[in-house]
């Protein structure tokens, strides 16, 4: 897939629904939204697809584009790769076996659990942590919104990302040859579909970071399969037929909730942080060198972990409890040892095959000399702004507007307070000028001044102090 200059984003605006209310700009962790001409506008280079704006928009004007079940027709053989969070979406009585069988009943030829990929990644992360001299703390590579957050806001931390791919990627790398063999087709004829809790993963499927090509062919939101899947499971239960086989262990499924990855890795001094704004706080501490005593940081953009993804259905707290219960399940008894499996596989399938490069959005210009001039101008511009962070200019804060101004992407008069002040000054100057006349006409002065008064109607009441 081509991704040299553009960044693919699953998060989109539905223009007709947007009322320009500025709610979203305030919550965006990378200040990636501006309101212009009454509509929100997502700035591609800044957006990390965390879905925070989808969560907060009162008009449901933010959405995520993704694939639908229709796309199954495009492939001879299709395999569903369900996110561990999917198991947390249904009643307590519904077992993972039923969920997998339900996916097959929906039309997939086979399933391959991302939770099983998580089982393997747990082994690999443990191995990384045991290597001598590795950078501390290491940061989990599982959440794509976090990876993009690091790229744009914490470029210093790129080297902290654990050099192991995500559970989804491993699952996909194993699923494709397996399905090709089983159904006697070529690998390209297999369509792999991730059942996704979030737009971040949808984007990662369309345009992976750290890999040259995507291992997955499409991503379908959990909320899209939820209805048909629930019906399929009900029908199957009525028919009393056998269920699909689960190969993941409870720990692999546990990755769906915050703390689950750490529990599965279970090594060293770990911390788990969820919610994108909390992740930012922790990353700032890492940048200050404050967390060198910590070995591993599980960082998830959604509160509660992937069960809190914006494309899920069930209340995240309820789903989280279910996942915790499921995570106590032992793995299948006949399962091959994970350690041996990891040994048997080629190491390259677990690795990024491209560096995760910083894409800092903070620099005010490419050229440092120019950037320094802009930082200086920024200070002066900031002094003229009221510091109220009111959002009427369409930028999230006065600071953000000032940055836009020095980048020549906004004007000082975009601030209503600056504009008002300018209008006032102008009005005063007009009145003042109107009383001035060339000496030769001086005898008319009084008349002209009262004429100006009438036309301008400059009100005398004092302006409210801000």
């Amino acid at each position: 897939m081509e991704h040299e200059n553009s960044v693919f984003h699953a998060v989109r605006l539905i223009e007709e629904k947007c009322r320009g209310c500025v709610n979203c700009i305030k919550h965006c962790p990378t200040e990636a939204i501006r309101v212009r001409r009454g509509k929100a506008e997502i700035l591609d280079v800044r957006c990390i697809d965390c879905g925070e704006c989808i969560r907060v928009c009162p008009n449901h004007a933010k959405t995520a584009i993704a694939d639908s079940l229709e796309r199954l027709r495009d492939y001879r053989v299709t395999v569903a790769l369900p996110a561990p969070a999917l198991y947390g979406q249904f009643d307590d009585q519904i077992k993972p076996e039923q969920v997998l069988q339900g996916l097959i009943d929906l039309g997939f030829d086979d399933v391959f659990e991302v939770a099983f990929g998580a089982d393997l990644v747990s082994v690999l992360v443990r191995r990384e942590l045991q290597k001598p001299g590795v950078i501390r703390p290491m940061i989990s590579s599982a959440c794509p919104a976090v990876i993009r957050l690091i790229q744009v806001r914490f470029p210093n931390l790129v080297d902290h990302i654990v050099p192991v791919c995500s559970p989804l990627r491993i699952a996909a790398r194993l699923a494709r040859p397996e399905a090709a063999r089983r159904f006697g087709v070529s690998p390209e004829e297999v369509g792999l579909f991730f059942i996704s809790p979030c737009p971040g993963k949808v984007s990662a499927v369309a345009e992976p970071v750290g890999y040259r090509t995507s291992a997955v062919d499409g991503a379908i939101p959990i909320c899209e399969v939820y209805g048909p899947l629930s019906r399929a499971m009900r029908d199957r239960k009525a028919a009393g037929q056998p269920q699909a086989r689960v190969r993941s262990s409870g720990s692999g499924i546990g990755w769906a909730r915050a703390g689950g990855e750490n529990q599965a890795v279970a090594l060293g001094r770990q911390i788990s942080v969820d919610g994108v704004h909390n992740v930012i706080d922790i990353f700032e501490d890492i940048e200050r060198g404050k967390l060198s005593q910590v070995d591993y940081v599980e960082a998830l953009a959604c509160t509660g972990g992937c069960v809190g993804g914006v494309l899920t259905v069930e209340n995240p707290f309820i789903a989280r409890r279910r996942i915790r219960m499921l995570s106590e399940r032992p793995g299948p008894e006949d399962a091959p040892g994970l350690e041996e499996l990891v040994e048997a596989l080629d190491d390259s399938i677990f690795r990024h095959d491209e560096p995760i490069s910083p894409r800092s959005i903070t620099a005010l210009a490419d050229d440092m000399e120019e950037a320094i001039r802009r930082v200086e101008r920024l200070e002066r511009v900031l002094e003229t702004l009221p510091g109220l962070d009111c959002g009427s200019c369409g930028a999230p804060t006065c600071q953000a507007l000032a940055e836009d101004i020095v980048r020549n992407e906004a004007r000082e008069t975009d601030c209503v307070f600056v504009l008002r002040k300018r209008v006032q000054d102008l009005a005063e100057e007009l009145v003042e000028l109107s009383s001035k006349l060339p000496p030769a006409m001086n005898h008319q002065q009084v008349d002209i001044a009262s004429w100006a008064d009438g036309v301008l109607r400059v009100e005398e009441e004092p302006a409210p102090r801000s």
Partner: protein
Amino acid sequence: MTIEPLEQLVQSFEIAGQDFSRAGEVSSKIRRILQQIGAPVETIRRTSVATYEAEMNVVIHAQSGRIDLSADRCAIQITVSDVGPGIVDLDLAMQPGYSTASEEVREMGFGAGMGLSNMARCADDLSIDSVVGQGTTVKMQFRTNG
């Protein structure tokens, strides 16, 4: 041939001593500025760690202080000066693990005695001037290799 003078950025920030709720604010601001001017990632990393340690030393050990930043294409200069007790034995203070921090401060996770040695490790150049009973000035330079 004329040589254009390098564009230079100069800014100053106040630090409130003993105010733990705002501790780290100045070094965060400085890091942001360095990102804004597009300084190399590696230089920003070292500068942030060292500036944070120096800021914390003012918060923990002194009454008040300030940080002066100057930056150009080639180097970043950080000067942290405070009004405070000063450092009695500089060689001792520089030793990793040496700390006079109170029990209370240690409970907050500071006082491992690693600050000054971290600063020495991160900075390309470090000099400390201290007058007991008056205060301390720490000067650090970070080259950008640019």
